[in-house]
């Protein structure tokens, strides 16, 4: 059975025109997707299977099918490594319609990753409590 994908539980994402902003609430990392990467994400978020995603990309862009297939599979793997998506079993959903514009040249999809907000979003678990049960700051060695 072909693998399909679902967006991981700690991920929030919003699409703006042809750009998607993704945030991993656990790690504090955020990501930017444009162009082909944005289209792949749209298909992933819709719950499409790997073959459907590859087929849609090859149909929607101008380029070598072999290159587009390899680059798309590599990109999907990258999304999984970053824990933005999880592979799951199932037929997957049908591809949502793309925009009506003519096919544009394929550009290898890239996951832009930003870590400058990591400190801000990273959670700071409570490790110690005082005798009344209130959290106390962990004294780290100087």
């Amino acid at each position: 059975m072909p693998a399909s994908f679902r967006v991981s539980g700690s991920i929030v994402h919003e699409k703006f025109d042809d750009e998607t902003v993704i945030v991993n609430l656990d790690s504090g990392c955020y990501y930017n997707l444009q162009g082909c990467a944005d289209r792949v994400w749209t298909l992933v978020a819709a719950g499409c299977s790997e073959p459907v995603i590859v087929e849609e990309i090859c149909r929607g862009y101008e380029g070598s099918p072999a290159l587009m297939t390899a680059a798309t599979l590599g990109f999907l793997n990258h999304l999984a490594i970053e824990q933005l998506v999880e592979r799951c079993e199932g037929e997957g959903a049908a591809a949502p319609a793309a925009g009506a514009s003519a096919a544009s040249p394929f550009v290898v999809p890239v996951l832009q990753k930003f870590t400058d907000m990591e400190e801000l979003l990273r959670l700071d678990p409570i490790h110690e409590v005082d005798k009344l049960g209130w959290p106390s700051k962990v004294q780290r060695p100087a």
Partner: protein
Amino acid sequence: MNRPLAGRVATSVQDNPRAAAFFAGALDEFAEIRAAGRTAAHHYAIAGLVLRIDIACGAMEHSLCRALQHLAIPSVERPDLSLVAWDSASTGSAPLRAAWSIEDYGNYGLIGGFNDVRYYAAAQSDPAVIFGMLDRQAGQALYWTPDAGGLPIWERGAPFRPLLHEWLYHCGLLPVHGGAIGLEGSGVFLAGAGGRGKSNVALGCLAAGLSYVSDDFCVLSDSPQWRAHSLYSTGKLGSGDLVRHPGLVPLVSNPHALAHEKALFFLHEAFAGQFAHHLRLKAIVLPQVVGEGRSDIVPASAAEAQRAVAMSTVRMSGWHGVSTFSQVARFVRALPCFTLRIGADFENIPALIGDLLSRLAALPH
């Protein structure tokens, strides 16, 4: 009353006897302090809602009520939220004892078993223990800290923030990290992470005569249009930034602590006429320090604005970060977005903001 933002207001209430018992017990502790005549009551109007705070007199009241003073109103019989606040040091009361174990502390200091549709409870510890609990159904909240004298600058500048954030969110409003300034009832929302220039821009505009809602925390409502509502009357600047704001130097509330704290201002005390309880928002502006050349304002994408507004707001939003992210997306899609490139001519920024508002006012709705 503001219309709730789509689909966010809880409608069902579950039984939680453990949380209910703890909440009632803590309220009883405060009732003893009140019965001894050692509390004061204040009422505030926030984004169309009424907050009543009963607070221990002395250090607590002095530390925490000053930032809300611009929103003070006469006594109201039925407030939307009644909050009681006390510390043990100044009242001589026994410290609250946690009714949970270390394993119950979760992300953002949320306490397992004490957070559900009805209750919110969280504690923080750095540098002082601050505990807050909200009963959404009853419209009651409590706030306790061991010693008001140990409250940090950010708590004095933005008192009760997590509690008020939860309550306002529950009431259908969107608390966000960002400032708002404007002219004649219309304004721009200033967004960006710390260090991007929000406070410098907001306080520079205040000094130049513009209306002021906040330099870094606002409450948004979306009906009938997006508005930024004031919550705190404070502003903060790094001590190195004071040179750009000579008129604010006499207003620094913590001049002896600037080596390790930001300068904190209680601005309504000097700029009461320029404080706006709310502004109709016309644009989102993302300050960016360039440091040379002329300052200017150029279009920005909604995605840039989403990153600027959402990232730090989500951190403040605790468990509802996911829905906050989508609510912020609605906000940034609704307004034009710009980058304010801050050059060497910092003094020209208020005029640039004024020009932007004039141009936007001339556009057809």
